[in-house]
């Protein structure tokens, strides 16, 4: 249905709407109206951040609800679980035990299906951000065949996306995939006779990457400096040695003993369990020289250690700033960070780490809504360019499956498939050249190389033009068909077509110069077919443009 018709229909139903594309003037309301203060373009722009891409329907819905009610609606939608879908898919596919690659493809299919078609858009978008902070990856040999475990880990992130950070940290720590990825599983207390010390891997990365980072931070996310103007490390390797002893004595939740490695489907998805004989029960010094006494069992030690980390002053700025960077802008002002940090520290009811309030505040912050300036926003994650395209035009994959299983080779990014626990790119990466000269972070530029930018543009062309790429049920990619029904109706109206594409794909942010280029292209394309050529070219040129590459 065309947008105009949809709005007309909405008005008939007694709801209110502002004039399409207007700048937010509200109109009169009837009995119990939602406050109508946002325009379609504002709505589309908001959805570029808060979802995997605007659709005509979601723009209408947000216009009708307003930001706050829309967020509340999204908060209430239950998680679309990947694990259940994947389990069903694998049963139906009936693959052999040795078809690991085919199973991995189906794990990734499930991700695409959920983020493109799931109703819980906000939750999945936040989970996607969390998956790039609390990283696990099936590039790691130990996780290569753990497709159920990885799907379940994504579900965990989605479930806790609106929960409490401390509980998320606990769940992540005891997740068997994390146990395998950062080798906490089967970590044993020291055996001095054989020169064996506890594994330091999780002890380091949980602090360096999942909670406090390496440098002491102010509330506004900037680094604290000592009297010599030098940054201050949050911990030394002596603390690592202590924490390494905390995380001893854990194995799969259904393992009969610690030194046992066989596993089944259940092992991948249930929390790990502790084996006290292998846990170091001596006293330990944690951050800030906090002492946890001797004699505690593994879960008690774990809780004490995670509390110790959770209460470190860095957690709020470290996590808040990264969430802002993943969702809204790579370079939030210190004031923006501090406003979010304050809410992370206390949600108003005395709760620390309330992620729902943090997420809400990130999206409703004045800086996010104003979205001003030449350096505001971020280079899009390449995966998000594809989800946007597929959502906007209701993509259908061959065999009914949206599949893009080799996106790491094409886009430099694959869901839960980063090269290491350091994710695809770092939040403080500054692309050398102009961006670094401006002193601004540009995280996704770390994977925007000369080779990947071109393979990405080419694959977007394949999707828009419906290329018949090599296919088969176990092919890495399926051809997709995009539904251009609404756009074809506008193909005899170049300006209308470009305006429509601008709203749907770019939140109305297309520059006049770019609009003129597109309108000229559409106008000069002879209308001697049903309009497909005009529409395809307009859409392809949009998604391959420099302006589309930025979320503003």
């Amino acid at each position, binding site marked *: 249905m065309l947008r105009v018709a949809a709005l007309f229909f909405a008005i008939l139903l007694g709801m209110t709407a502002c004039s399409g594309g207007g700048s937010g003037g509200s109109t009169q309301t009837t009995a119990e109206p939602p406050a109508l203060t946002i325009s379609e373009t504002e709505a589309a722009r908001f959805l570029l951040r808060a979802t995997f891409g605007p659709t005509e329907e979601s723009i209408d819905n947000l216009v009708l609800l307003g930001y706050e009610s829309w967020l509340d609606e999204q908060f209430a939608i239950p998680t679309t679980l990947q694990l259940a879908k994947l389990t069903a898919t694998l049963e139906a596919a009936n693959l052999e035990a040795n078809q690991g690659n085919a199973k991995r493809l189906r794990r990734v299919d499930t991700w695409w299906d959920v983020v493109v078609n799931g109703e819980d858009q906000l939750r999945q978008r936040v989970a996607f951000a969390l998956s790039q902070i609390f990283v696990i990856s099936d*590039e790691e040999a*130990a996780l290569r065949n753990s497709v159920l475990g990885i799907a379940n880990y994504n579900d965990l992130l989605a479930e806790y996306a609106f929960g409490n950070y401390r509980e998320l940290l606990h769940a992540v720590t005891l997740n068997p995939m994390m146990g395998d990825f950062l*080798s906490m599983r*089967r*970590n044993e207390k020291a*055996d001095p006779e*054989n*020169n*064996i*010390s506890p594994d*330091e891997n999780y002890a*380091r990365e949980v602090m360096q990457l999942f909670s406090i980072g*390496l440098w002491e931070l102010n509330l506004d996310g900037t680094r604290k400096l000592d009297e010599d103007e030098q940054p201050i*490390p949050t911990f030394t*390797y002596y603390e*690592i*040695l202590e924490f390494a002893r905390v995380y001893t004595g854990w194995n799969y939740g259904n393992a009969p003993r610690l030194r046992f490695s066989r596993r089944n489907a259940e092992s991948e998805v249930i929390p790990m369990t502790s084996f006290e004989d292998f846990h170091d029960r001596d006293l330990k010094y944690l951050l800030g020289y906090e002492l946890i006494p001797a004699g505690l069992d593994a879960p008690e030690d774990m809780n004490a250690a995670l509390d110790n980390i959770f209460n470190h002053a860095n957690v709020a700025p470290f996590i808040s700033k990264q969430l802002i960077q993943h969702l809204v802008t*790579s370079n939030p002002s210190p004031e923006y960070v501090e406003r979010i940090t304050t809410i992370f520290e206390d949600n108003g009811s005395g709760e620390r780490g309330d992620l729902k309030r943090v997420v809400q505040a990130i999206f409703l912050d004045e800086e996010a809504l104003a979205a001003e300036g030449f350096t*505001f*926003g971020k*280079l899009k994650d390449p995966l998000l360019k594809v989800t946007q395209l597929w959502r906007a035009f209701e993509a259908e994959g061959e065999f009914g499956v949206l599949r893009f299983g080799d996106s790491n080779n094409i886009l*430099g990014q694959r869901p839960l498939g980063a*090269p*290491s626990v350091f994710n695809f790119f770092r939040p403080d990466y500054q692309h*050398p*050249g*102009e961006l*670094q*000269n*401006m*002193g601004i972070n*540009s995280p996704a*530029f770390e*994977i*925007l*190389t*000369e*080779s*990947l930018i*071109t*393979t990405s*543009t*080419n694959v977007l062309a394949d999707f828009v*033009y419906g290329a018949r790429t090599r296919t088969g049920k176990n092919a890495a990619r399926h051809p997709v068909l995009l539904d251009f029904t609404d756009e074809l109706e506008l193909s005899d109206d170049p300006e209308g077509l470009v305006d429509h594409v601008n709203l749907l794909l770019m939140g109305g*942010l297309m*520059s006049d110069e*770019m609009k003129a*280029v597109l309108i000229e*292209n559409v106008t*000069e*394309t002879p209308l001697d077919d049903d309009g497909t050529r005009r529409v395809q*070219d307009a859409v392809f*040129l949009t998604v*391959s*443009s*420099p*302006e589309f*590459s*930025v979320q*503003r």
Partner: protein
Amino acid sequence: MKRREFLTRSIQAALAGSSMTATLGHLSLVNAMVPPADDYRALVCVFLFGGNDSYNMVVPSGGLEYEAYADARQSLAVAAEDLVSINPLTTAGTFGFHPSAPELADLFNDNKLAVAANIGALVEPTSRTSFENGNIELPQQLFSHNDQQKYWQSLNTNVAKPTGWAGRMADLLEGSNGETGLSMNVTIAGSNLWQTGSATLPYSIGAGGVQTLKGLNSAASGERERRRADAFNAMLTSSPTSAFGQEFARVQQRSINLADLIADQIADVPPLETQFPDGNPLGGSLSMVARLIAAREALGMKRQTFFVSLGGWDTHSDQLERQPILISRLSQGLHAFSQAMEELGIGNEVTTFTASDFGRTLTSNGDGSDHGWGGHQLIMGGAVNGKEIYGNMPIIEIEGPQDSGRGRIIPTTAIDQMGATLASWFGLGASELNEVFPNLKNFSIQNLGFMR
């Protein structure tokens, strides 16, 4: 462990060996910034992401030294009888390579490969005492992966705009190359700091080669494609609305500018007889480097660096299963590349070396090792004074004089020293070396002698 005896044995091979002549030798290169017409040199960095446990790659095999090694490493130790023997020309003691590296041992014994021992991130000479007293300057965030990767590549990360040492070399040498616009620094492994200078960015090529844009040829026969290409190009040059969009356009433009040229030149290179190992990601990357080197004249290149990588070395667990596979990939990949360079007749003009985040703890964590500090690196090529170990083999002893804790061995030779030795061969003069290697001045030996 008889520490004194071991210390005596591990005197600096650099001094015992050919370093002096090598040092004198490259005095002639000072100020030779514009190479003659037939002159070509390339440096290939093979970065082993994750931190290679290189104390299991090069192992002392003599009685006492092996005992000390086995004692420290316990269940992680490589069995003495499995080591592939190498025979250094002058370094005292006997040594072996990991059993998965027979090709590397062949290269070593053939004079084409050298070992730089116990290299690592140092600002100034560091002992256990000075480390523990804290009265020396240390690189920031030792033992952290990304910080140490950056340090290896930069040697000066504590600045607002860090650059890499190959980037700084390129800033000085870029004039050596032709005018195609192709950077001196080419990466097959994506963005990296090593090749980024103040005025130099690495050019990124996939292991599969260069892709050109589909359906966007502004000289196409079809009107529709020409129209589309014109619109696409117009958007690349239109007034930017965002700093990020502007930079995106720059990258896309750079990709377009060179793609056709490089694709054509690579296509014109006759296929190499050398077979690169299948299913080996390093082999695939090095094969692309070989093709680019084969096209060097057509591309007008006199000085080049290449960055390739092999990941997976962060062996906190299952090290005994995982590391052999990685070492085997490294060994077979380097061997094939060496053959390819000889096939192209430029074995003496291409030098390949390894780098890695850090070494690893000598002590086990049960079934793996943790983040360490110093480690061994390999240098390969016809211009290498091979069959030798340079620097000092470490004292393998837990809580020994070089242990900073758990067998995180304090490096005895700085990355700056190894880098400067390579850069000197590459064509940098003495003053340039100090510019490119900021810590070099803190070390008395500025050339390790492993290059002719």
